């Protein structure tokens, strides 16, 4: 009986386990997880912070459903791979044997680089424990400082606002998420944040975080000092400056890595029988030889399923789809599809990739961009060689499924290019007309 071992019970690990079970009713499937909670929705943590969901609702599967799948769950941290013996060693010394191994260890927040970052009250947001910690601190804190960029930083900002905490949001440069959004889109989000009572500090960086002893003699965050010497009192500091694939387990092994664990289109690493999927994996595109990182839930699910099928002996090729994320920024629904970053503009607030982000969004050169910009509802289409390659849709989402399809199916939109570029006709009208008239 084949023994399948999976490290990490996130989106990729769970999807792989479920797929293996579909193909192999009798196989032993063991999931190792260092988190005590099992399988839950990580993007759902944002809604836990805003009180839109209770913690109990984060779990897509009940204990009974997990039992019915016949998954052995081991709580503990894997610390070492013994590839020769085909075993994984846990922190407590246990050794687990495998025939096929999946590394689905995800990505972790880049630790805050400033002095004072290890004081209690300084937080990042990776997992349920972090979200609970943020909620606990928010109950006592009056004021928080948030630094960083991308979706996670704003999710923390909005979570803290929902908990009634005053928020100072520091941006290192002039605007929010410059690697993906245009200046106008950034401004729209910033205006809304300001309207919600968030105080944005442009061109501001933390120099150090200062602590103070409380009445019980414990040191806690009391203020931040900015690089230009200003002091700002606060009781908590949240940092979201990017994430990195968790490569600890494969260090000092022959498994090849770049920024993530390199895998082929069957999700197999350079060591046969060892697979990787999800945030930790970097899939090499056989056509271009390039490998981009995605930190997206649906991508992790798709990769987990493909890896699981291959582990179960059903040869399956993973094809990278067009990356898509629908998110809420400052209360506005924003859909990002395909290549949307207009310039290769470095992001001052992120030192690596952000959560809910894809490197595909950094954009490609020589594209045509058309906009429809209203106060709130806006569309931006990125076009290359008569094909839609990316889109940003803000506010009204009626167009979003249609645009998603046009991008995924690489439909030739040559015939409507002049109309799309006309300032007098709304993009929505042109596209709808195009599709309704059978292109």
């Amino acid at each position, binding site marked *: 009986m084949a023994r399948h071992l999976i490290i990490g019970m996130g*989106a990729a690990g769970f999807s792989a386990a479920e797929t293996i079970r579909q193909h192999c009713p009798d196989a032993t499937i063991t999931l190792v997880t260092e988190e005590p909670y099992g399988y839950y*929705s990580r*993007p*759902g943590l944002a*809604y836990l912070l805003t009180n*839109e*969901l*209770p913690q109990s*609702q*984060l*779990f*897509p599967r009940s204990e009974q459903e997990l039992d019915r799948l016949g998954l052995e769950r081991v709580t503990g941290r894997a610390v070492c791979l013994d590839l020769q013996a085909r075993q994984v060693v846990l922190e407590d010394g246990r050794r687990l044997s495998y025939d096929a191994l999946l590394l689905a260890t995800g990505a972790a927040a880049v630790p805050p680089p400033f002095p004072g970052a290890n004081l209690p009250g300084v937080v990042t947001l990776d997992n349920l424990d972090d979200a609970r910690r943020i909620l606990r601190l928010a109950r006592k804190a009056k004021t928080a400082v948030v630094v960083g960029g991308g979706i996670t930083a704003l999710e923390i900002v909005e979570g803290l606002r929902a908990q009634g905490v005053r928020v100072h949001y520091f941006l290192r440069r002039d605007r929010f998420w410059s690697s993906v959004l245009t200046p106008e889109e950034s401004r729209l989000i910033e205006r809304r944040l300001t309207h919600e009572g968030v105080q944005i500090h442009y061109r501001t960086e933390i120099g150090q975080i200062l602590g103070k002893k409380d009445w019980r003699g414990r040191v806690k965050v009391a203020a931040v000092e900015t690089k230009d010497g200003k002091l700002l009192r606060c009781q908590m500091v949240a940092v979201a400056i990017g994430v990195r694939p968790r490569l600890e387990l494969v260090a000092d092994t022959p498994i090849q890595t770049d920024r993530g664990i390199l895998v082929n289109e069957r999700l197999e690493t350079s060591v046969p029988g060892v697979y990787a999927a999800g945030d930790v994996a970097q899939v090499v595109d056989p056509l271009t030889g390039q490998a981009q990182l995605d930190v997206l*839930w*649906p991508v992790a699910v798709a990769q987990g399923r493909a890896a699981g099928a291959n582990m179960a002996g059903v040869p399956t090729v993973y094809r990278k*789809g067009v990356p*898509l994320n*629908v998110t*809420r920024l400052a209360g506005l*629904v924003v*859909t990002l599809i395909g290549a949307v970053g207009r310039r290769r503009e470095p992001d001052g607030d992120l030192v690596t990739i952000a959560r809910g982000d894809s490197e595909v969004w950094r954009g490609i050169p020589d594209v045509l961009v058309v906009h429809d910009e209203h106060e709130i509802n806006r569309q931006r289409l990125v076009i290359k060689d008569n094909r839609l390659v990316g889109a940003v849709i803000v506010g009204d*989402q009626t167009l*979003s*499924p249609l645009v998603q399809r046009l991008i995924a199916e690489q439909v030739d939109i040559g015939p409507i290019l002049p109309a799309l570029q006309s300032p007098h006709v709304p993009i929505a009208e042109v596209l709808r007309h195009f599709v309704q008239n059978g292109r």
Partner: protein
Amino acid sequence: MGLLGSLFDYERRRSKALAAGRVVPDSSRCVQCGICSFNCPLGIDVRAHAWRGEPVNGGHCITCGECVARCPRGVLRFEQIPHSLERILSNTF
């Protein structure tokens, strides 16, 4: 038709559309957050349907639209049930 009349007409068309509709997910957008299931007044596990990419079929769903409206990711939409299928479904449940 006055304002009230047109509102009434809108409501009538809407409920007709809803009665003949079913909730269909686009799994590629779903992040399994559970907001849909949490807000369904009938306790239908909409999230599980989204995971499997299956429409919410059957007699329990009252097509109230709560899950469609609350999903933060635009996963769920109403789809008209083809007449043939509607007949089969109403015979089954």
